[in-house]
């Protein structure tokens, strides 16, 4: 097994509001292997966005606090990193694309300026002229690199390269003169072509509000990838697009996953979208990760009643032969979660022990070679649920 790019161990995130604490994410553990796409799926309010934004410590820390656990990114526990040091890790270490492309691009700046800013940050770090973070010279192949030390994160050597160079027409970098303006422009154009924008010269001087949603999302992806992050977090990147554009962007992302050696954490509420792109799947419910495993396994034989119900509820035919199956009951109020297993009020195979004992988080299911984990006492019985 290779080292995961990021390993989350027992992470809990609380919101401190007034006098009370409210636990949005409880005890979540998962890993993103290098080069893999991990999908996280769940209903609105299950904590997946909170989890996604907590990894690069993007959550506003006064109301939100990390209630426990570790986030190991290339050997560094991000929970222990002071907030003012996080900019060194963001951008070239972890990057993120968001849901609303109109809001994700700064409406006051032109496209060129925004993408160039990202490229510039990476170049400055690669050439060692950044006081914030330094990077190793030359393209960096993470797979051949020994384990980084914690101090490497900002003393410099953790900017990975990737396969982007093969896909991108790259000019020689002149180390002495640093970043030249024509070279910056060429890079920007290259990355825009990478996301399949034809004639990117025409959009350089435009503002975000002058472009379509699909175009904006591509630019967001270009901006994020131009910094060659080890981990790219995609927080519902296609949810705000209409279906045809959604298809285009998804196709683009699948192709990029082949070309670029970046690992992706893909958050969505849409099982279909995840099914197309992910290698592993994690299912979240009420702040807990209830199942995690290789996607084919999870789809074929889900080991948690919630996952099974979720899969069953997806409409698969045009004409239904009967009413749509839904899960009885409601999502619990997270300030007062049910005792024991959070899903037990709605679970068809609930037993008395479920009311008392929350299932151990993601117990390994024996025999599965890539680990398939489920947070259910009776994981083996899930197959039998109709």
């Amino acid at each position, binding site marked *: 097994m290779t080292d995961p790019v990021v390993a989350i161990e027992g992470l809990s995130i609380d919101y401190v509001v007034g006098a009370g604490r409210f636990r949005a994410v409880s005890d979540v553990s998962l890993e993103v292997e290098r080069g893999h796409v991990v999908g996280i799926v769940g209903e609105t309010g299950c904590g997946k966005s909170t989890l996604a934004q907590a990894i*690069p410590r*993007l959550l506003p820390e006064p109301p939100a606090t990390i209630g426990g656990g570790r986030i190991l990114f290339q050997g560094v526990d991000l929970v222990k990193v002071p907030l003012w040091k996080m900019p060194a890790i*963001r*951008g070239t270490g972890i*990057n993120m694309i968001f849901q*609303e492309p109109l809001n994700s691009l*700064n*409406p*006051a700046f032109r496209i060129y300026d925004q993408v160039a800013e*990202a490229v510039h940050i990476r170049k400055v770090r690669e050439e060692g002229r950044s006081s914030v973070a330094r990077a190793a010279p030359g393209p960096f192949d993470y797979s051949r690199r020994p384990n980084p030390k914690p101090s490497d994160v900002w003393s410099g050597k953790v900017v990975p390269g990737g396969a982007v160079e093969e896909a991108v027409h790259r000019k020689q970098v002149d180390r002495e003169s640093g970043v030249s303006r024509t070279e910056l422009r060429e890079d920007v154009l290259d990355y825009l072509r990478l996301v399949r924008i034809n004639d990117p010269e025409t959009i350089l001087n435009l503002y975000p509000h002058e472009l379509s949603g699909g175009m904006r999302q591509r630019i967001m992806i270009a901006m994020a990838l131009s910094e060659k992050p080890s981990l790219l977090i995609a927080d519902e990147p296609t949810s705000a697009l209409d279906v045809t554009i959604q298809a285009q962007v998804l196709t683009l992302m699948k192709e990029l996953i082949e070309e670029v050696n970046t690992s992706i954490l893909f958050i969505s509420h849409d099982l279909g979208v995840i099914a197309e792109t992910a290698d592993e799947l994690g299912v979240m419910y009420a702040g807990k990760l209830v199942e995690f495993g290789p996607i084919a396994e999870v789809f074929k034989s889900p080991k948690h009643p919630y996952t099974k119900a979720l899969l069953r509820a997806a409409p698969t035919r045009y004409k239904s032969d009967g009413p749509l199956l839904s899960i009885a009951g409601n999502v619990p109020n997270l300030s007062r979660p049910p005792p024991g297993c959070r899903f037990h009020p709605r679970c068809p195979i609930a037993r008395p022990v479920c009311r008392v004992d929350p299932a151990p988080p993601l117990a390994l299911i024996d025999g599965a070679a890539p680990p398939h984990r489920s947070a259910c006492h009776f994981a083996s019985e899930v197959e039998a649920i109709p």
Partner: protein
Amino acid sequence: MGRSPTDLAIFIGKRLVQLVPVLLGIIVLTFVFTHLSVANCSIWYPHASASTLANCQAQFSKPILVQFWTYFVNLLHGNWGASVTGVQVYPAIADGLPATLELVFASLFLMIVIGIPLGVVAAQFAGRWGDHLVRIFYLTGWATPTYLGAVIAAIFLAPYFGLPSHGEYTYTPPPFHQWTHMSLLDALLAGNLPWAADALRHLILPAAVLAFINMGIATRMTRSSMLEVIPLDFVKSARMKGLSEFFVMYKHALRNSLITTTTVLGVTAGGLLAGTVVIEEVFGWPGIGAYAFTAIGGGGAAPNFDGAVAVVAVFAVGVVIANLIADILYGILDPRVEWR
């Protein structure tokens, strides 16, 4: 795309044209309001000679329409009238205007340089002690009447900091040609650094008081628009690029929140101009604020009606132009807005 330079020129032209009826209305209103009551010549000019009183009586006993017509015709001929003792209005205002502009610009500069970052800080610490401190600061300024602040500054702060509290220069007249009649600018243009330093020392206290009192609205507006902008996704994108928090706030977030902040530029200008009346009087600054103070009969002076009308009209025009500049800035800062 309604944002080319020609669009801007047409926009400015249209607004300037609209300025004319507003200006007319301003002149009419000011005249009417200052000539509301019957002539009280003996009360207004208790120490005047008999002939002056007779003149005053004759002038003010005419029906107001006649009075206005006379005034207006004179105005069209370029005669802005005179005080009861015959001092011409136009030269007085023309002499004092640059000094007031200098004071107003200096205050604006201080307001922007101090007030806006304070608003950003208040937004970053919303609800916590930083926010409270900033709020106390700008509300203190807001709650201080101009004269109170000016008097305290001139009498207590000036000696404490060793700053002068009167006039533009320590010695007058300055030994160089005054191109702009703005003390600091003239000294810098003449390359005379000691005098420039002197001018700065005279300028700083009145400008600081004026800025402190009027800063509230800029800080307040910056704070609330930053609070709206900070949760937006593009701020998170900027953070995720790896920019330090400073750049995220001051390059990305502030740039967008300034769009709404410029809308209060007009109100700010009004407050600043009104403040100059008292500040200039207390600090002996030779601008049109001090002129307004005496024209209105402040401090027991004899009222100068022509002067009052003129100076009030000038202030109003200043506010209108400030609003126009605010509109233009708004169009420049927000690329989604067209100039129509």
